[in-house]
């Protein structure tokens, strides 16, 4: 018995994997994380496998750890699985060789994904899987959600019988995240397919002291080779075993699969061969071409390893003369990509052996890297190429390769989608509920109405205000179209502003229905459309419907939630179902979804449905264009050429059209591009009350998006200021003619409100009025644009005249990290902005993969920028796991090049001037004034070197910049620092090199959706800790302190910004490894982000997050290096913790357990604080001596012990 349902590929695979295993060893990585997430949730909810027990789901510290744990569980006889992708699979490779070598039965389920090269990509191709080819794993590839569901079981059946481990893979995102209709295997189906004798045999092979043996020996030249060959019979049997498993499944379910699935003309002369979801696309193209009389076919490869030549030959029609093999991967420098090579080798062998008479002409091509669209049109291009007299090999599909000219031309007129399929595209904004509502619509249509349905969702890379595009198909037959909709009969724009920025109607088919959510009536809407949009309406004869969903939501009491309303519109006008029936389904779905929240919530949503039908109206489309509104330029005219020609096209959603030649060859992109992307996300923005402001700098300090800028300047500069430009006298003595301005970059503001909350000044005469207050942006925008433009003409304050030691002073330092697309109110970014203000002009940053690498370096833009002199942070990301080592490499190179520069300088001293050479070599470089002075000397040196014509001078020029002390920062989240990168971090801290480690500690894996890390606190609920984490958070600070030579600080900006500032400066000044643990509130904590800084304050006040600094330098003056900066806990832990859903949800769902955990957590906090207090009270002699003297430090980086603790507080002059 099977059940028709809808789910995404990940869930479909996990559904099977969970039921046929006893142990799941997991670690989150996109796009496979949802498999691990659901497995953990099922285990937490007590869902049983087919043997009636609940599998153990164990999160590990890295994929390498997951593979190791999995290997151990296998060796102990447990049925074990894992889920991974991309770099995660790379970390598993060493164990995979072992697992395969020992003939362990297991299935790894892989949502295949690109490997990071010049750039990371989370999207799908086969690069990861192809790298696993030599491991000895069988590779089984699925092409659709249904297939992935079924093949998950086939792989399990086959691995148990064959003893060869399987890697079952399917296309990341395209299959893993596609919502599609499938027949779900029942537990009985699954049970019937698994032979318990094989399970018992698997267990019997496990290690046991009851019948001991050893496995995993070391072998010598005499036997190792033979051992490798001894496994051959097992591999030889695999194809037959898989085939048998497929047949058994087909008998039970009626869904036949083959190792090589040929679909096409039995007499085909041209065939495409490929794997994965692209096969469905190619099949659709071939079917259309066959209808037009072409003799073509498609061969889908499912079992890629072991590669069965016999099965290939049996499946491939004998008379095929031309073959194009499409690989979804690139092997630079190879004779061809992997599948291509296998096909050529197989056919050549067959011809040589006489099994085939003629060798077909085989060409290879690449498609779909990083989820690049692969459409029937592209498949046709490959078929067409095969018709050429000399078909081109090594071709590409889907890009414009104007550099190497590999790309095949595409015939865009080839549109083959059936009229029986309803196609709808929705443009929404992240978190506006569009995607959720569409997922719900897919379920309604598939499960209630009995149609087949598909949903695929595309997101942009911003964490706040990301655009979402939903592609939905519905029809009477299964939807086998794993590609985006190009011609939609229904297009909805849920964010009216998007229509004014992008050509959203490109996807509208002629005569399509267009729904706009806009604050205008049917009579008004036409005049509000930009001119080109009007033209498209007329040209394509589109119908226009309009709804003011926000108004309906407000009227019925749904606040800002418009999802039900817009969903109703879709059902009302798309015609996918009869209207009344559809409305009935929506209401039933509302009843199911909201019943537990009470009848009134249900009633409000019902009212929303009814209100929608009353307010939805069709607007007339006049015959002529009347609008004077033009689409705004995507980048200002004064933007750099690259921004205008490349970056701006990505803004416009036209990145696919950028030719190869325009893309940097080595991943190098310009800094400072976020400033060009005025996203205007928030309708409300902060407004300054200059009369109330005390110019303390707190607002700018906490602003996560660097939207608040302060300058002081001579009052004469106000001449020419636009109307409404605000300023106030500088409220410090000694600046009688100076003015102060706080400027808000309103177009870049996310409206998070942190600044308002941070503002300490309230009006003495007005209720609830502060120096900063939120207000509607629309009436302010024009004036603010003018104000910003004027503000930018004011000089940036001289760094040498700013007090770096005070939050008030820091506001005048230019942020070299601005406008990141991080979540509104992000707790991480203020620390990075501070880093950039203090040290940005000489900082080199190694950034671990995670949130900070996404908002820091995900195209199209980067927030890392340059100052007026062209200097700014040099930023790079290597991997998730190696960031500390990567950053250490920066330091090693910097130290080496500094030493080289000093040595060359000494050699050239007589030519460049002894005084200058000596001054440079001996310059102190701690204070900002020192740095400025050194820069001047180095500039002088450069000028002199340019006049010296000899190799040494050129050599010195190549490393001369290192004479200015470089600030090396290693930045990442707790997932990196506490888990996957911990080994490396520990090692780097133990090297005594001058690196600064900043841990943006959100206490979960934020980027992949809130999975627990070892920084997750006791009692908090997170993914992989659904019933509350049962172990304490790792005390990374104490571990680092134990080394004695590491500067360690724990900070929370919201609790004490001054302490944060001091810690950053001390860490950077410290000539050894420094570690800053920075409390970063996060959306994954379940807080009102506007109160993020207050939560930080409560964290410190409760003693949960004590603030402290451990400065080994103090040992040189016999003082205690450990300074506890926060007072004794003054509120209970609960008063902090229960403001956060991660804690409070447990109190709701499991109150007794929550109580018990809270008591334990409170005890732990109290004890931990005592421990720190004890440290703080100790005599200095009871700490490690400062051993750095034993390590040779480059002279310029050396630091002398301060005479007293505050000696380095005010380096500015």
């Amino acid at each position, binding site marked *: 018995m099977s059940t028709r349902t809808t789910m995404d590929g990940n869930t479909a695979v996990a559904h099977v994997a969970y039921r046929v295993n006893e142990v799941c060893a997991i670690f989150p990585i*996109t796009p496979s*994380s*949802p498999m691990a*997430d659901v497995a*953990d*949730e099922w285990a*937490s*909810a007590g869902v049983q496998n087919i043997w009636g027990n609940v599998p153990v789901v164990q999160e590990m510290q890295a994929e390498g750890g997951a593979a190791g744990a999995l290997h151990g569980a296998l060796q102990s006889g447990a049925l074990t699985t894992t889920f991974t992708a991309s770099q995660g699979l790379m970390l598993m490779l060493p164990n995979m060789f072992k697992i395969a070598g020992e003939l362990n039965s297991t299935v790894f389920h892989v949502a295949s994904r690109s490997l990071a090269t010049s750039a990371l990509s*989370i999207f799908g191709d086969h690069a990861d899987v192809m790298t696993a080819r030599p491991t000895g794993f069988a590779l089984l590839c699925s092409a659709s959600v249904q297939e992935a569901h079924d093949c998950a079981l086939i792989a399990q059946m086959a691995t148990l019988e064959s003893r060869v481990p399987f890697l079952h893979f399917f296309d990341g995102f395209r299959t893993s*995240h596609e919502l599609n209709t499938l027949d779900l295997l029942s537990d009985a189906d699954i049970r019937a397919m698994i032979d318990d004798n094989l399970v018992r045999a698997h267990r019997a092979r496990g290690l046991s002291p009851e019948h001991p043996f050893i496995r995993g020996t070391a072998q010598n030249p005499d036997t190792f080779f033979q051992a490798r060959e001894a496994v051959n019979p097992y591999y030889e049997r695999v194809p037959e075993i898989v085939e048998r498993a497929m047949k058994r499944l087909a008998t039970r379910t009626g869904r036949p699969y083959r190792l090589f699935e040929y679909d096409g003309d039995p007499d085909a002369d041209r065939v495409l061969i490929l794997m994965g979801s692209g096969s469905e696309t190619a099949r659709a193209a071939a079917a259309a071409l066959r209808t037009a009389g072409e003799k073509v076919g498609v061969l889908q490869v499912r079992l890629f390893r072991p590669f069965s030549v016999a099965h290939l030959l049996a499946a491939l029609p004998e008379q095929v003369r031309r073959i194009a093999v499409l690989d979804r991967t690139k092997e630079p420098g190879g004779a061809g990509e992997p599948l291509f090579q296998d096909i050529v080798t197989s056919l050549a062998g067959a011809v040589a052996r006489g099994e085939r008479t003629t060798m077909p002409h085989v060409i290879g091509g690449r498609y779909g890297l990083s989820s690049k669209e692969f459409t029937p049109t592209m498949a046709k291009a490959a078929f067409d190429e095969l018709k050429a007299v000399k078909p081109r090999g090594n071709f590409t599909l889907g890009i414009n390769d104007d550099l190497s000219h590999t790309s095949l031309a595409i015939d865009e007129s080839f549109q083959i989608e059936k009229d029986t399929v309803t196609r709808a595209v929705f443009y929404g*904004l*992240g*978190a506006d509920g*569009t995607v*959720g509502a569409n*997922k719900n619509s897919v379920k309604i249509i598939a499960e209630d109405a009995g149609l087949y349905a598909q949903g695929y*969702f*595309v*997101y942009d*890379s911003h*964490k706040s205000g*990301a655009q*979402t595009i939903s592609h939905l198909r519905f029809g009477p037959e299964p939807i086998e179209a794993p590609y985006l909709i190009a011609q939609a009969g229904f297009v909805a724009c849920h964010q009216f502003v998007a229509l004014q920025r992008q050509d959203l109607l490109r996807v509208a088919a002629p005569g399509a229905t267009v729904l706009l959510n806009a604050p205008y009536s049917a009579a008004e809407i036409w005049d509000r459309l930009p001119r080109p949009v009007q033209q498209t309406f007329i040209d394509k004869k589109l119908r226009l419907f309009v709804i003011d969903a926000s108004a309906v939501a407000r009227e019925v009491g749904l606040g800002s*939630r418009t999802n039900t309303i817009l969903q109703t519109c879709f059902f009302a006008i798309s015609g996918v179902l009869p209207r009344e029936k559809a409305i009935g389904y929506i209401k039933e779905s509302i009843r199911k979804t909201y019943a*537990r*929240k*009470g*009848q*009134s*919530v249900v009633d409000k949503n019902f009212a929303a449905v009814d209100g929608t039908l009353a307010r939805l109206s069709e607007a007339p489309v006049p015959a002529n264009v009347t609008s004077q509104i033009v689409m705004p330029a995507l980048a200002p005219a004064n933007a750099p050429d690259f921004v205008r020609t490349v970056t701006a096209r990505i803004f416009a959603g036209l990145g696919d059209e950028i030719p190869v030649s325009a893309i940097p060859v080595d991943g190098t992109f310009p800094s400072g591009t976020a400033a060009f992307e005025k996203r205007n996300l928030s309708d409300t923005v902060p407004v300054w009350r200059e009369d109330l402001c005390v110019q303390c700098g707190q607002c700018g300090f906490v602003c996560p998006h660097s939207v608040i800028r302060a300058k002081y300047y001579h009052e004469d500069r106000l001449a020419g200021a636009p109307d409404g430009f605000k300023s106030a006298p500088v409220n410090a003595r000694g600046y009688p003619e100076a003015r102060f301005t706080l400027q808000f970059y309103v177009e870049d503001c996310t409206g998070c409100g942190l600044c308002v909350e941070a503002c300490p000044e*309230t*009006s003495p005469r*007005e*209720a*609830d009025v502060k120096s900063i207050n939120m207000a509607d942006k629309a009436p302010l925008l024009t004036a603010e644009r003018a104000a910003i433009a004027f503000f930018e003409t004011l000089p940036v304050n001289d760094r040498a005249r700013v007090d770096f030691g005070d939050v008030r002073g820091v506001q005048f330092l230019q942020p070299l990290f601005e406008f990141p697309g991080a979540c509104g109110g992000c707790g991480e970014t203020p620390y990075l902005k501070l880093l950039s203000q203090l040290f940005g002009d000489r900082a080199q940053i190694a950034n671990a993969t995670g949130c900070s690498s*996404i908002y820091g370096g995900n195209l199209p833009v980067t927030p890392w920028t340059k100052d007026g002199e062209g200097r700014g942070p040099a930023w790079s990301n290597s991997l998730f796991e190696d960031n500390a080592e990567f950053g250490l490499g920066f330091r090693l190179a910097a130290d080496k090049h500094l030493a080289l520069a000093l040595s060359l300088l000494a050699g050239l001293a007589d030519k460049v001037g002894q005084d200058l050479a000596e001054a440079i070599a001996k310059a102190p470089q701690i204070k900002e004034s020192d740095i400025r002075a050194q820069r001047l000397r180095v500039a002088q040196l450069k000028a002199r070197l340019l006049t010296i014509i000899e190799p040494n001078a050129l050599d010195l020029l190549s490393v001369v910049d290192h004479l200015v002390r470089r600030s090396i920062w290693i930045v990442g989240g707790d997932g990196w620092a506490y888990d996957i990168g911990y080994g490396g971090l520990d090692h780097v801290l133990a090297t005594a090199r001058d690196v600064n480690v900043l841990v943006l500690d959100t206490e979960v894996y*934020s*980027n*992949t*959706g*809130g999975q627990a890390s070892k920084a997750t606190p006791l009692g908090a*609920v*997170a*993914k992989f*800790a*659904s*019933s509350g984490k049962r172990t304490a958070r790792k005390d990374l600070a104490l571990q680092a302190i134990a080394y004695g030579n590491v500067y360690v600080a724990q900070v929370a900006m919201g609790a004490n910004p001054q302490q944060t500032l001091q810690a950053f400066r001390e860490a950077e000044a410290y000539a050894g490894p420094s570690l800053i643990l920075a409390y970063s509130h996060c*959306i*994954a904590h*379940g*807080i*009102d982000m506007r109160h993020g800084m207050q939560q930080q304050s409560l964290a410190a006040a409760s003693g949960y997050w004590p603030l402290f600094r451990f400065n080994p330098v103090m040992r040189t003056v016999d003082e205690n290096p450990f300074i506890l900066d926060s007072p004794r806990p003054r509120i209970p832990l609960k008063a902090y913790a229960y403001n956060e*859903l*991660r804690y409070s*949800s447990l109190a*709701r*769902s499991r*109150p*007794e357990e929550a*109580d018990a955990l809270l008591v334990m957590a409170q005890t732990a906090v109290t004890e931990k604080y005592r421990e720190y207090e004890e440290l703080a009270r100790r005599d200095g002699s009871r700490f490690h001596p400062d051993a750095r003297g034993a390590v040779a430090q480059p002279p310029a980086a050396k630091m002398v012990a301060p005479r007293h603790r505050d000696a380095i507080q005010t380096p500015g002059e």
Partner: protein
Amino acid sequence: MALTTNYLGLALNNPLIASASPLNSRLDNIRRLEDAGAGAIVLPSVFQEQIEAEADQVSARIDAYAESSPEAQSYFSGAIANPYGMGPDSYLDLVRRARAAVGVPIIASLNGSSRAGWTDFARLIEQAGASALELNMYHVPTDLLESGQVIEARYSEIVEAVCGTVALPVAVKLTPYLSSIGHFADQLVGRGAAGLVLFNRLLEPDIDLSAMKLTDRLELSEPEEMRLPMLWIAILSGRTKASLAASTGVSDVAGVVKYVLAGADAVMTTSALLRHGVGYISTLVGGLRAWMDEREIASLDDMRGMMSLLRSRDRNAYSRANYIKILGHYAAP
């Protein structure tokens, strides 16, 4: 000596009831209250709008970033995102667990904001096993267009709707800010109310002068606040078929005795327990017993309403004359 009393048709061991407060949300406190001799326990008020607001807040925090990144469809485990534990679930759990934990009657307290909310929740609370239901009529009529009649009519309708929905005895906790409490109380009884709780305290906001903000600090009730409820208990005693529970201002044994003398079938306290701890209820029960002992009063029934309007020899004492007399006795400083 019999301290037993009948409240809402429930036989209580004594008239002391731990009224709705956060104390009573913990099972260990509920057990301790029973051990200390509480006659019944009212669970904390479940506010429909609070539940909805909480659900909305949780949804907002969960939904704010859901489905907005290709790397994370959500940022919360199912344990947070799943609606279990939200809405009325946790309250109903409390009702069930409290009933299972103790033998004394468990009275659930409900504050609704819509007609549907009242009846839906009442039904769920009944299914969860509550012994009785207290409707907490807490409403500040900030709408200047809303007349007293309209408000009273709405209250009456709600009481009727709830009483028509559940078989449980229903008590109504009233606000003192009604024009004619006795008349209105009578109406409510006519609509099905089995008991009246006099009165609900409005927790009015205060103004923080330094921050120029409204604050909402909870102030415990003081003994002098007893006199208004005592007045109305005394006026209603013996003149309504509804049970009467006195609430507000009980700080010691004297307060309990006074309320019973005025005619209360049950005496509720929270402030005393918050001040002195849950065990204080045994002090109050013991003190009541001692007071009765001293005067050789054999049962609570004998004592109840001794000083009520109906039984008072000087009925004017409860009317406006009393007000004049008090003022007359007041010596200016």
